[in-house]
């Protein structure tokens, strides 16, 4: 379960050598722009850009495709019904007794392409620097320390909760529990979910206490020193300018149908 969140083995690449702050800033701008795109052709261009960055980052192919595959299933859940649901007066095709609207297909494709682009950017960020480096970069970019800590702790809790769940499942199995579809199973699943929640809460409280015992007062401190080279700025400007160009193109296409 935690495998989905584990990081790939660090690879040396042009992107991983960049100053994490500039890289984070560039990818955040690119992601924000991608999220607001309204036209399919521009979204496809953004996705191509994201994939280009992924190539520059030398993302391990299997690692990337596995995550993309898992996310696609999730996106498909939302995107697939759209062609049937978004029926308007525009063009449509009939498939047997079903009517599929052109508008719906476009919205579904836009959603899917944007999701792939955003995930690619996120995975590129994840693969080119350890999580704590990215969080420290976020902190250096003046993201409030509350959010930085939230990021750090959420990441940590994924493992803790997965571990608790694993322990609970073992506890159930050694007492002869079998999965099934009856009343007893549903009740057990309910209890397990409840226990997990309570344990998670208590654990969170104790971690907070342990942090205070080590002098934590809400301030995020770090030894990481970042240094900027011209190439960092150049990459940032290139990515930001491309994002701006895509944004202008998108607005233009939208206003002149």
């Amino acid at each position, binding site marked *: 379960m935690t495998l989905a969140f584990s990081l790939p083995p660090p690879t040396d690449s042009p992107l991983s050598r960049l100053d994490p702050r500039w890289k984070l800033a560039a990818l955040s701008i690119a992601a924000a722009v991608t999220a607001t795109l309204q036209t399919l052709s521009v979204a496809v261009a953004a996705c191509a850009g994201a994939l280009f960055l992924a190539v520059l980052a030398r993302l391990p192919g299997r690692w990337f495709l596995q995550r993309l595959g898992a996310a696609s299933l999730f996106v498909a859940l939302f995107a697939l019904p759209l062609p049937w649901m978004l029926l308007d007066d525009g063009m449509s095709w009939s498939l047997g007794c079903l009517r599929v609207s052109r508008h719906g297909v476009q919205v579904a494709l836009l959603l899917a392409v944007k999701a792939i682009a955003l995930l690619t950017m996120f995975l590129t960020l994840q693969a080119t620097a350890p999580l*704590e480096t990215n969080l420290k970069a976020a902190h250096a970019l003046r993201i409030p320390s509350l959010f930085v800590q939230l990021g750090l702790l959420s990441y940590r809790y994924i*493992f803790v909760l997965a571990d608790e769940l694993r322990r609970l499942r073992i506890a159930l199995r050694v007492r002869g529990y079998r999965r099934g579809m009856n009343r007893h199973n549903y009740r057990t699943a309910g209890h397990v979910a409840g226990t997990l929640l309570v344990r998670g809460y208590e654990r969170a409280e104790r971690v907070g206490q342990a942090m205070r015992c080590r*002098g934590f007062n809400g301030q995020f401190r770090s030894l990481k020193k970042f240094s900027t080279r011209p190439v960092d700025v150049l990459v940032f400007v290139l990515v930001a300018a491309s994002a701006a160009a895509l944004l202008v193109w998108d607005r233009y296409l939208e206003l002149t149908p």
Partner: protein
Amino acid sequence: MSFEIAIQARDLTFAYPGGAPALSGVSFDVAAGESVGLVGPNGAGKTSLFLCLSGVLQARGGALSVGGLDPRDPSQRRHLPSQVGIVFQNSDDQLFNATVFDDVAFGPLNLELPPHEVRQRVDEALARVGLTGMEERVPFHLSGGEKRRVALAGVLAMRPSILLLDEPSMYLDPRGRRELIRLLHSLGGTRMIASHDLELILQTCQRVLLLDGGRSIADGPAQTVLADATLMEAHGLEVPYRLRGAAR
């Protein structure tokens, strides 16, 4: 300063919300540099006592002073972390950073030490617990014993004058346990060690405090208290192996 007292507790009382008292009327003194073992059956209140001493829980009644500070006073509590280091019973509660290095550096950074001093303290603390070279590992992918050592290193790096160790030998293999005992001998300062590992207590503490049902039952030299077979049995403990011959 005259006879220095590191921990002074008078008539400490604590109850969890809606529960029976976890501590009732516990009193004791610990002199600076003394090493005191805290023993008692499950649910005796050992962990609760440590949490009161470190200011996590608010004990009621009596007087409490730890390293000259009152953990119940919010303004004094802020200075407690540089004085008192507590290693929790469960290491998972204590480790939350993405690398071992960051976790051990967490305390020194909070003390606002200069970067080179932070690095030096982290290196030294990791060396003391035998984890040199593990700096970049992810703490939550370590074994139970390794986690325990990281947690201990994180506290040692703060160089507290008082150490509270809750079940320090849990999860350690025999060699790790031997090294822990050696480490405890090499550390100066005041220590309280709560443990069911009575052999460890016997080897590291001159004095023992026996708790049961939140009350202080006995307080005396480790060799005497732990050798008292009737007392030990009455409180769910047993005389450590190496004292058995002596009692007869």
